C-alpha cells in the first residue's frame, strides 16, 4: 500500500462538478461536524466555501487553541549545501542555474549553529539540495551530530532517502522529516522536474511514509502551491496527511503551504494562489485535521504571518537565511533557494507573536527523548 492508491481513486474525479454542487448549507454543515471526511474537506476548499471565511475562521481558531493553546513554535532552517543534480524549473538551486555552489564544512556548520542558537533558536531544520556526491550519508550524519550539540531538536529537509538511511539519521538524533511532493499532479510533476533523481514521482511520494516507518516523530509534508491546480493539489496534501496519520499512530503529521511569492520574478506559476484562497486552505485543513501542525515559513510576509497566528498556524521559522552559510556571515554570499519576504529577526518575530497574544515557544523537545 502507498498513498498512491488513494490518489488513484481520484484519477477521474470531476472536481469542478463537485464544486458546482456545493451549497451554502453543505458548507455550514461541515462547521459543526466533529470529524470531517475527505468530501467535507473538499467542500471547505470549494469556491463556495470562500464566501464563508469568517465563519470557518472562528471554528479554526477555536480548534487550534484547543489543541495547541495560544502558542507558536519557532525554528530556523539551515542550508548546508546547494549542490543539486535536479532540474526543477522553479528552484534557485536548479542544476542548470549558474550559481556559486557551496557546501559547508563541519566547522562551518558549527559556526552557523552557534550563530543561530545564540539567537535563542532551539529547533533546527537542516537543508540541502539533492546530490549524493556532494552530500553523502556520512556527511549528513556528521552534520547532525554537530547540530545535536546546539539544538534540542534537529529535523531534515533533504532529498528522499531509503528507509534504512532514514533509520540511521533517526538514530543519530533527527526527530523530524520535512519533504514536499511539490505537485501531486503526475503530468505537471513530470513537466516541472526536467532531470535528476527527482523525476521519480513515486520515490518522492512514498518518502514521507518511509520516514514514518523509520521512526521520525514528525513528518511535515506539502505541495508547492502554484504548480498544479491549487484546490486539488491542496486536497491531496490533506489526504496524504490523513493517510500518514491513519497508518502511523506514533507519527505527528504536519503540513506546510508553501506558495510562490511575487519576489521570485523568474518563475511565474501557472496557478498562483492569492491571499484569500491561501487562508481558506489553511482554515479548511485545520478543520479537517485539528491536531496537525501547520508550518508557515518566511515565504509569507510579516503581515500575513502575524494574522495567520490567529487562524491555525502553529510553527514559524524566524530570523531566516535561505542561503548556504548565510547566518555566520554578514552578507549572503550564495543564491537563496527562494526569496524570503519576512526578513525580521528572531527578536522581532518573537515580539510580534507576543503582541498578538500568543506565546513564542523556543524549545519543545529534548535530546533525552
Amino acid at each position, binding site marked *: 500500500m502507498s498513498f498512491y492508491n488513494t490518489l488513484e481513486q481520484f484519477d477521474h474525479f470531476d472536481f469542478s462538478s463537485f464544486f458546482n454542487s456545493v451549497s451554502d448549507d453543505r458548507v455550514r454543515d461541515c462547521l459543526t461536524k466533529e470529524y470531517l471526511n475527505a468530501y467535507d474537506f473538499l467542500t471547505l476548499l470549494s469556491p463556495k466555501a470562500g464566501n464563508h471565511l469568517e465563519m470557518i475562521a472562528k471554528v479554526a481558531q477555536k480548534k487550534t487553541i484547543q489543541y495547541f493553546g*495560544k*502558542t507558536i513554535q519557532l525554528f530556523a532552517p539551515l542550508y548546508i549545501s546547494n549542490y543539486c543534480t535536479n532540474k526543477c524549473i522553479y528552484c534557485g538551486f536548479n542544476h542548470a542555474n549558474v550559481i556559486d555552489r557551496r557546501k559547508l564544512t563541519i566547522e562551518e556548520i558549527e559556526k552557523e549553529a552557534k550563530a543561530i542558537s545564540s539567537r535563542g533558536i532551539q529547533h533546527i531544520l537542516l537543508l540541502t539540495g539533492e546530490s549524493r556526491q556532494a552530500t553523502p550519508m556520512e556527511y549528513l550524519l556528521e552534520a547532525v551530530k554537530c547540530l545535536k550539540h546546539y539544538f534540542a531538536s534537529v529535523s531534515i529537509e533533504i532529498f528522499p532517502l531509503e528507509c534504512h538511511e532514514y533509520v540511521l539519521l533517526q538514530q543519530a538524533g533527527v526527530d523530524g522529516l520535512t519533504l514536499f511532493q511539490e505537485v501531486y499532479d503526475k503530468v505537471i510533476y513530470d513537466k516541472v522536474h526536467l532531470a535528476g533523481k527527482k523525476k521519480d514521482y513515486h520515490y518522492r511520494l512514498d518518502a514521507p511514509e518511509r520516514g514514518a516507518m523509520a521512526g521520525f516523530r514528525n513528518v511535515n509534508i506539502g505541495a508547492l502551491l502554484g504548480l498544479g491546480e491549487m484546490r486539488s493539489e491542496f486536497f491531496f496534501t490533506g489526504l496524504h496527511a490523513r493517510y500518514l496519520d491513519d497508518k502511523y499512530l506514533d507519527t505527528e503529521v504536519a503540513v506546510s503551504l508553501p506558495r510562490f511569492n511575487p519576489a521570485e520574478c523568474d518563475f511565474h506559476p501557472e496557478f498562483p494562489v492569492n491571499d484569500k484562497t491561501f487562508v481558506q486552505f489553511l482554515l479548511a485543513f485545520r478543520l479537517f485535521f485539528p491536531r496537525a501542525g501547520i508550518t508557515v515559513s518566511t515565504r509569507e510576509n510579516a503581515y500575513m504571518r502575524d494574522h495567520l497566528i490567529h487562524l491555525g498556524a502553529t510553527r514559524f521559522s524566524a530570523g531566516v537565511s535561505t542561503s548556504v552559510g548565510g547566518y555566520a556571515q554578514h552578507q549572503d554570499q550564495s543564491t537563496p533557494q527562494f526569496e524570503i519576504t519576512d526578513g525580521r529577526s528572531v527578536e522581532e518575530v518573537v515580539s510580534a507573536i507576543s503582541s498578538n497574544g500568543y506565546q513564542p515557544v*523556543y524549545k519543545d523537545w529534548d535530546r533525552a527523548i
Partner: protein
Amino acid sequence: MNDEGLRLGDTTFTNRLFTGTGKFASNEIIPEMLETSGSQMITVALRRIDMQSVTDNILQYIPDGVTLLPNTSGARTAEQAIRVARIAREAGCGKFIKIEVITDAKYLMPDNHETLRATETLAKDGFVVLPYVLPDLPLAKRLENAGAAAIMPLGAPIGTNRGLETKPLIAMLIENSAVPVIVDAGIGFPSQAAAAMEMGADAVLVNTAIATAEDPVAMGHAFSLAVQAGRAAYLAEAAGQSVVARASSPLTGFLD
C-alpha cells in the same frame, strides 16, 4: 468531616487542584493563575524546560512553595521516560515525576505497559512517581505494588475537554486503590472536575481548560471552587443516585 489534605511522598497538599504549564498565551499568566486557583502543584514537560535560556525558562514563572511536577511528555518508551526523569531531577526539579509515555500521536493514549516499566525503576530510584494511565484496575494494582505514589487515570483524551468518559473505570480505581487517584486529562469544565471529586477522586489535574480559557486566571479560580465543592460533597457523603425511585416512606414498611 475535615479534609486533612492529600499526602504524596512527604508533601501534603491542601489544595486538590493540580495544574499545568502548557498552552498559555504567555507564561506570565502562570503565577497569577496559581495564586487565584491556590494550586500547589503544577506539571511541566521537561522538553519545554530550557535551563540555559534567560528569556524562555518556564521554571522562573513557578513561585516557591508550588511543587513542581516534571513530566516525561515526548517519551515513547520506559527507557526514555526514565532518562527524562533523571535529567529533571539533576536539573533541580525535585523528586516528583509524572510518567507520561505515549506511543500514539493520534489519540494520545498512554502506553500502560511502558508506564508500568518506568514506574518500577523510578520508584526504586526514590522518585515520587505519578503514572498517567488508561484506567485499568489490575494495572493500577501493579503500579501500586511497584511503588507508585498515586494513579493518574485519564477522564478523556488529552485536550479534548470531554470530561469523565471513563467514569466507571475510574470508579473501580477509587474503590480499590490503596494509593490516591488523581484524574488527569480530558476535564474541560469545572462541573466535570466537581463530578470527579464528588465520586471520590483525591485530586484532579487540569491544564488545557484553564490555559486556553479566555481568562485563565478566572478559570483557575473557578476550577478551584469546583474541586472544593466536589470534595466537600464527597466528604459529606452525598446521598448518591439510584436507578429505582425511593419513596420517602418505605413501601414495605407495613411488614415490620
